[in-house]
């Protein structure tokens, strides 16, 4: 019996994208409804898949009914399902925020949005290295367009940089895939894992090079030091809903690092085992430091959140970089937290900027804003959340990461950097928040934006902030069900560190003609 649910996360956004493209452009409400319905379906599909893989089984879906390693397979394991669920959740909130108005700032927002999800979901599910490249390209091209959605000078500049550097990255990806194929003669990741483990000593150096080039590609997507430079401007200048969705984008890089360097170049990889161990942890720690320096140096909130995203990727990859079960499990707990928190802050920053007239989100004393109380409270909570202060999920994540670091040789480094950067983050966020909320001057409230009044009537502030609150609620959910979730992530981590099951599930797949 073929489990078709494996491919739902790919088919649904694809069909949604196509239908939204074919739908008459004038029926905005209709398109919004369709778009939301589609995301709801994806959420359901991801949830079902998560439930299915929770049994421990790995579902392999042979596309075109060609047996691996010849055809392309989708592989749904715990990790993939986890990523799918996180993506669907954050996308739902981003979309809910976008349908309030920013979706009509440019053409084809909804189609692009769903195709972006197609790229993300496809990347999480695929079991084929070249296919991963293809879905990278989908998610990248969609992200280029979404990034530029609505237009504007700064957006264009940031977009240009983002596009060009990613094009170079794509080229590098192909060089790496090509080399691997040229040496090992296969593209299926499970098969590659087998072939890499049995590689000839003559080929070891070349395989290493290919593996490391891949690392550069994934590090670029993940915005790991020194390849993070594209991110601050790109995330700070794009539309809020898009920035919120992009909170998951860097995690694709992290996902790929985790997948490829546990499966293909992991502990079982013989002569090239633990290929990036020497690189990942130091770079991740430095990324964390640089990200936090950026948050300290930021002069506006959205920029600060962008740097927080970088810092969170540093933290996440620190966890993965420990290359032990507890570390990976901790990272997998931290991943949704940082995604939700980052997304929520991007959305909130937009709400704040919209109310501060020309001050926007600059860290300068401005007017007292409408709904100061509720926005301030949310900001305070989200700041504590992302800074990793108790009792929210950020703290749990950080705690788990540090706990995982205890047996690690680099414990002093990890603990020192994580704790000190935590302090700096606290200082940075307290400064920014106090500047915007506490130093608000004059009790007058400005009404400058033409649509501002409409946006700020009582009902719409609820819908405006609802996505933020949902994201916050997800984080609280992470806290409350931390037990179940850490159990899931721990088993996931052990599944990743023992890739035999994955490899066998893929390579022993029986294809019925």
């Amino acid at each position, binding site marked *: 019996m073929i489990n078709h649910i494996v491919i739902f996360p790919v088919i649904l956004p694809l069909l949604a994208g196509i239908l939204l493209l074919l739908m008459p452009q004038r029926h905005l409400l209709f398109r919004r409804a369709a778009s939301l319905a589609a995301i709801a379906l994806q959420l359901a599909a991801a949830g079902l898949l998560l439930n299915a893989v929770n049994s421990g089984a790995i579902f392999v879906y042979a596309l075109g009914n060609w047996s691996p390693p010849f055809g392309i397979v989708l592989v749904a394991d715990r990790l993939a399902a986890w990523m799918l669920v996180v993506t669907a959740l954050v996308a739902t909130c981003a979309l809910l925020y976008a349908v309030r108005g920013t979706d009509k700032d440019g053409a084809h927002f909804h189609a692009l949005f769903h195709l972006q999800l197609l790229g993300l979901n496809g990347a999480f599910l695929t079991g084929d290295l070249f296919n991963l490249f293809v879905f990278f390209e989908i998610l990248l*091209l969609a992200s280029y367009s979404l990034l530029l959605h609505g237009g504007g000078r700064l957006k264009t*500049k940031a977009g240009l940089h983002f*596009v060009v550097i990613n094009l170079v990255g794509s080229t590098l990806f192909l*060089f790496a895939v090509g080399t691997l194929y*040229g040496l090992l003669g296969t593209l299926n990741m499970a098969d590659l894992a087998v072939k890499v483990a049995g590689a000839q000593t003559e080929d070891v150096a070349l395989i290493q090079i290919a593996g490391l080039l891949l690392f550069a590609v994934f590090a670029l997507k993940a915005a790991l030091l020194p390849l993070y430079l594209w991110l601050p401007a790109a995330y700070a200048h794009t539309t809020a809903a898009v920035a919120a969705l992009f909170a998951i984008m860097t995690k694709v890089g992290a996902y790929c690092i985790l997948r490829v360097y546990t499966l293909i170049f992991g502990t079982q990889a013989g002569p090239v085992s633990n290929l990036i161990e020497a690189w990942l942890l130091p770079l991740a720690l430095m990324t964390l430091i640089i990200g936090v320096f950026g948050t300290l140096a930021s002069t506006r909130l959205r920029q600060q959140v962008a740097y927080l995203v970088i810092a969170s990727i540093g933290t996440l990859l620190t966890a993965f970089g420990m290359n032990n079960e507890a570390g990976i499990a901790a990272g997998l707990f931290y991943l949704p937290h940082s995604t939700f928190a980052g997304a929520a802050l991007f959305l909130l920053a937009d709400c704040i900027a919209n109310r501060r007239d020309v001050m926007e989100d600059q860290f300068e004393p401005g007017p007292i804003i409408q709904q100061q109380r509720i926005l301030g409270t949310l900001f305070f909570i989200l700041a504590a959340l992302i800074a990793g202060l108790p009792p929210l999920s950020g703290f749990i994540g950080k705690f788990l990461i540090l706990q995982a670091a205890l047996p690690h040789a680099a414990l002093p480094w990890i603990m020192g950097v994580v704790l000190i950067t935590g302090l700096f983050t606290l200082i940075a966020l307290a400064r920014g928040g106090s500047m915007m909320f506490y130093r608000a001057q004059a009790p007058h409230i400005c009404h400058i934006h033409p649509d501002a009044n409409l946006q700020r009537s009582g009902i719409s502030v609820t819908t405006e902030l609802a996505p933020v609150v949902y994201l916050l609620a997800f984080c609280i959910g992470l806290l409350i069900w931390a037990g179940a979730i850490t159990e899931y992530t721990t088993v996931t981590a052990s599944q990743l560190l023992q890739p035999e099951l994955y490899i066998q599930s893929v390579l022993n797949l029986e294809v019925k003609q």
Partner: protein
Amino acid sequence: MELLVSIIIGVLTACGVYLSLRGRTFPVVLGLTFLSYAVNLFLLVMGRLTIGNPPIINDNAANYADPLPQALVLTAIVISFGMTAFVIILSLKAFLEMGNDQVDGKHRP
């Protein structure tokens, strides 16, 4: 022949890298095109060099070129075509919005 191909790949890569490091959008686009040529050739020859034996099944052929890299390159060509088109238009937009075609929107006289 292998050496020749390697050199070609190397030169195309070098030219692509050099051009993509330039400060104006147009040479950068040229550079990206070069890089895609380079990598397409690289991918193709990863199935090793075969002359005169296209992977088209017929009774006379003794052996065939590896068809898989070719399929991959075809995909890569089309993708890079889409990407190139996008970046061309984007650079046009950037030029319009920034008043010059410097990649960083800066104009150095």
